[in-house]
């Protein structure tokens, strides 16, 4: 392991990177903060914080249509952010729609594409790994239309059973919506194969990429996915901003989601014509500073290099897994072969909440509970897990502290 640590030093200068994140340098309960709740939300580098600060101190203004200087600056910054996102995921700018987050992206597609194209007896496929946000909108749509929601089963290790997925696909399948990476277990799904199989059956695919963006390179064109959603706050940007990517041809066919300003071309009391993409789905004044922060965050991680980030996080994951398994009665939940930097675990019959509270006392932030995946927890026969989710600013030493902290908590709880 020592050798591995040396390799990772050459991969990323984590000490330097940590200097970019002011929030990490504080004491919690008199101990240095160890932040391992990155799958819930990521911390923000100074460059993102400064981008928001600069917007409000230098050029706050409503975007589009303004004739004045500040409006030009704000519009340019916001549209530059869209360009950055488009380049980052390999999409056209008009295919990149600003939304509030992944949840809104899914709801938007369910409420527009879904309402228009789903009819009685159609089938929508999701997986057993799903976050509630990729269950409920489809359930609501199915209830409204008399469609059927089908669920791809998983193995005990938390991997989608691909053969079962293929069996679910048929001519009635209209939408497949799955996560790129499971938030609760870290499983990386074979999304390219999932998409190809769905297309063969004539279905379109939504990829919930919320957990993928912070950890790896992504390319919507290479995957050939139809819709794609992610949240800014998980990828080092502000909360309340996210992206819905959709293929232009599909977005064009969809009715608008919300009505209001920005999304119109011409309004009379008799008839309104809608604006072009991407503005058609962006009613009202948007989260301007959020959009700008997302551009800054993506530039930040691209400067570091996502290949390096992925490689380093993989080392962290392997190291953390090995160290955690040294703890008596500790069981890793989610043992997929292809896995992102999530360590979900249980120790004996200790309630995750109790462990979480005692780790917090030691300055260590993890998440406990069902992680908004109650059906997944039911499938695994558990009520919840402890989840340590890693980012590239986490260190091997922090994982050592986590293990020490768990051991200390366990002696008290046993």
């Amino acid at each position, binding site marked *: 392991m020592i050798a591995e640590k040396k390799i990772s030093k050459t991969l990323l200068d984590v000490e330097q990177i940590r200097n970019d994140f002011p929030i990490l340098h504080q004491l919690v309960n008199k101990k240095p903060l160890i932040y391992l709740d990155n799958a819930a939300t990521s911390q923000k580098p100074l460059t993102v914080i400064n981008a928001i600060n600069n917007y409000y101190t230098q050029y706050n203004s409503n975007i589009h249509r303004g004739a004045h200087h500040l409006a030009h600056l704000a519009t340019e910054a916001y549209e530059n952010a869209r360009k950055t996102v488009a380049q980052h995921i390999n999409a056209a700018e008009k295919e990149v729609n600003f939304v509030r987050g992944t949840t809104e992206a899914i709801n938007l597609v369910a409420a527009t594409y879904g309402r228009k194209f789903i009819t009685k007896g159609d089938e929508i496929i999701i997986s057993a790994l799903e976050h509630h946000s990729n269950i409920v909108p489809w359930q609501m749509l199915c209830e409204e239309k008399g469609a059927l929601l089908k669920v791809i089963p998983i193995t005990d290790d938390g991997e989608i059973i691909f053969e079962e997925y293929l069996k679910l696909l048929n001519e009635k399948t209209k939408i497949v919506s799955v996560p790129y990476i499971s938030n609760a277990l870290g499983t990386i799904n074979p999304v390219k194969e999932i998409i190809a199989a769905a297309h063969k059956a004539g279905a379109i695919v939504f990829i919930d990429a919320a957990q993928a963006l912070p950890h790896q390179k992504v390319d919507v064109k290479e995957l050939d996915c139809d819709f794609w959603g992610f949240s800014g706050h998980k990828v080092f940007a502000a909360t309340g901003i996210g992206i819905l990517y959709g293929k232009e041809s599909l977005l064009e066919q969809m009715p608008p989601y919300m009505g209001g300003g920005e999304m119109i071309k011409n309004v009379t009391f008799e008839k309104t014509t809608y604006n072009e993409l991407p503005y058609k789905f962006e009613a009202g004044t948007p989260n301007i500073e959020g959009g700008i922060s997302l551009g800054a965050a993506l530039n930040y991680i691209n400067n570091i290099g996502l290949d390096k980030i992925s490689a380093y996080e993989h080392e962290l994951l392997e190291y953390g897994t090995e160290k955690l398994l040294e703890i008596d009665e500790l069981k890793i939940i989610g043992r997929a072969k292809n896995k992102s930097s999530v360590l979900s675990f249980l120790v004996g019959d200790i*309630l995750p*909440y109790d462990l979480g509270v005692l780790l917090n006392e030691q300055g260590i932030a993890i998440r406990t509970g069902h992680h908004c995946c109650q059906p997944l927890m039911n499938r695994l026969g558990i009520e919840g897990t402890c989840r340590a989710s890693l980012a590239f600013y986490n260190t091997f030493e922090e994982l050592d502290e986590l293990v020490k902290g768990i051991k200390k908590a366990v002696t008290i709880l046993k």
Partner: protein
Amino acid sequence: MSKPISEIENELAEEFDLFDDQMDKYEYIIDLGKKLPPLAPQYLQDDFLVKGCQSKVWLHAYIEGDRIFFEADSNSSITKGIIAILVRVFSGQKPSEIINNPLAFIDRIQLRSHLSSQRSNGLTAMIQRMKTYATAFA
């Protein structure tokens, strides 16, 4: 006959003063939970669950003479310790004393700063349920 609430509060404050380290304090809270008498199975039902806790807390109350008695359990070791403290303070008291108690002991043993800062432990919900029982029996 139970001791007056003020006397129990003083005892608790003295016990908790012994600990400088938060982890030690938690260990003591967990031990108090372990000593809580078991709750009869018929009360380990959803009807007796206190809502607002991340962990499960079952609370049952009954009246004997002019006194109200509490019994409780939890699936969380920490929460069980917290409810054990509340049971120790309130069980065997007159309903009016529970309703009117300003809960000073929670601050004195620094329960509030360290525990109720985590809303998820449901300290407020537990106290509320005990006061609701007291009001119903008053």
